[in-house]
């Protein structure tokens, strides 16, 4: 599409502004993690790497990271199975209540997290028992299912049914067709949905504050608890900066996936 000069200038300005808006704050956090002073002030007066080594040996941080990984892995695993099952049903069959069910499958992300959080908390503490690591997993899996479902359902829609029909015409049963034809075609969507689910779970705090038992800190909860403690501030800075740097990893992975797709 050809654009007039003013339109071009406008778009480039917006792009520049948009990216500055996105990256200036993140850069600040990374720089600030090397700040020599314990209290925050911009610009920093000196730089040190000692906070980084202190953060690595911090027990609370390690414990929280382990828990966050466990929860994210479990929630993602549940979401991959349940989300794919549901996507297959919604995308491949027409049945009574299909519309209602597909609306149901957007609710956990369309309703505010605090509602999910307080609703689950109410059930877990007042009706069922107490909060544990499993209640965190249940809370996370609920919105992770939706993420996987959306990714896989979109892929199913684009695939069409010709390949599956061809496979079944050639004598493969449904299970074999899924294993040899549908699953390989869905794989990228599953990886993308799984990555997104893992990322969302690893980062979730609103539902987590309501579903985590006492002492069951995930990494975001640890950060939140220490955010306003002056003597922990440098460690929080380092954890924050490390999280920004690590966030490049899943992006790199999904980039690789899309490139593979386009070269094939």
């Amino acid at each position, binding site marked *: 599409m050809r654009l007039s000069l003013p339109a071009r200038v406008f778009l480039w300005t917006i792009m520049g502004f948009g*990216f500055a808006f996105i990256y200036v704050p993140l850069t600040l956090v990374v720089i600030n993690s090397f700040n020599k002073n314990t209290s925050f002030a911009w610009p920093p007066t000196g730089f040190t790497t000692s906070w980084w080594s202190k953060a690595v040996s911090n027990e609370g941080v390690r414990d929280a990271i382990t828990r966050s990984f466990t929860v994210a892995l479990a929630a993602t695993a549940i979401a991959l199975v349940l989300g794919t099952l549901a996507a297959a049903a919604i995308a491949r069959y027409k049945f009574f209540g299909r519309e209602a069910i597909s609306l149901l499958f957007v*609710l956990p992300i*369309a309703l505010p997290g605090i509602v999910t959080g307080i609703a689950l908390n109410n059930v877990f503490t007042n009706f069922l028992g107490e909060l544990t690591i499993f209640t965190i997993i249940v809370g996370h899996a609920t919105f992770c299912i939706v993420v996987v479902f959306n990714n896989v359902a979109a892929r199913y829609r684009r695939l069409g049914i010709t390949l599956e029909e061809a496979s079944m015409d050639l004598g493969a049963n449904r299970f074999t067709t899924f294993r040899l034809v549908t699953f390989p075609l869905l794989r990228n969507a599953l990886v993308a949905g799984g990555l997104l689910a893992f990322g969302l779970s690893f980062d979730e705090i*609103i539902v987590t504050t309501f579903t985590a038992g006492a002492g069951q800190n995930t990494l975001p909860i640890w950060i939140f608890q220490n955010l306003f403690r002056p003597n922990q501030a440098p460690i929080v800075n380092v954890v924050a900066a490390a999280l920004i740097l690590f966030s490049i990893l899943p992006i790199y992975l999904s980039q690789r996936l899309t490139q593979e797709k386009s070269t094939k």
Partner: protein
Amino acid sequence: MSVIQQTRRYMHRNIGARISALLALPLFWLVVIYIGSLAALFITSIWKIDTFTSKVVREFTLQNFIDVFSDRAYFNVTIRTLFVAICVTLICAIIAIPMAFFMARIAKPKSRPVLIALVITPLWASYLVKIYAWRTMFYPEKGFINWLIEPLGGSSPGFGMVAVIIGLTYLWLPYMVLPIYAGMEKLPDSVIDASADLGAKSGRTFFDVILPITWPSIIAGSIFTFSLSMGDYITVQILGGTFQMLGNVVYQNFSLNLPFASAVALIPVLIMMVYLTSVRKTGALDNL
């Protein structure tokens, strides 16, 4: 004939059985666990509270709803929350539409994945880290914004509603860019060429052709930005100073008076349900 073969044969013939087998587990999770909890939340909101022990008493009352709707303060919080959510959604849309348009239609196809990656990266950075970053930006007197505009005679707005709106806009911007980008990328070239052949300038093509076709994706993005802003209370705690939203009211009442907190939590649910049903016809829900 083995049991497995029998089951297979039965499943092959019976379409209802196949659908049920696929949907049983996911529906169990979403209906029993999720919708069940929401229903329990609603039931709790019509129960009483023992004011001495803060324990829920399972007796019917409408007092919580009367309290929510008769007190002017809660009405004001609701309006304030709606205002913030609408502002965040509009600002996100204003930034995201041109960005998505540029990335999907103007940028060279080769550089698109890189641009997309640049937009998604902050989506992966931790929620708290991003809000924390804005805390260092907005910090009164010693923050980055203050350092930047002090020589010009300005000063940082400090913590409050403005900081909350900007912080939330920052958090949810990628959720707006991605669906719009997907919508604009799907648009066939022929439609745009046809518009140009019929004499429309690029501005007209954008507003009369591209925008209406990608409307469902914009609405899809707005569902995220709107809902996420409305339920937030942590950003408000970190960037809001004394400013409060519905989420904060829920959070503060939740340990002392759960039935009342439940009643307040139903306000955003109600607003979202109205919003979802009113945009359902645009087909936005398929673009999430």
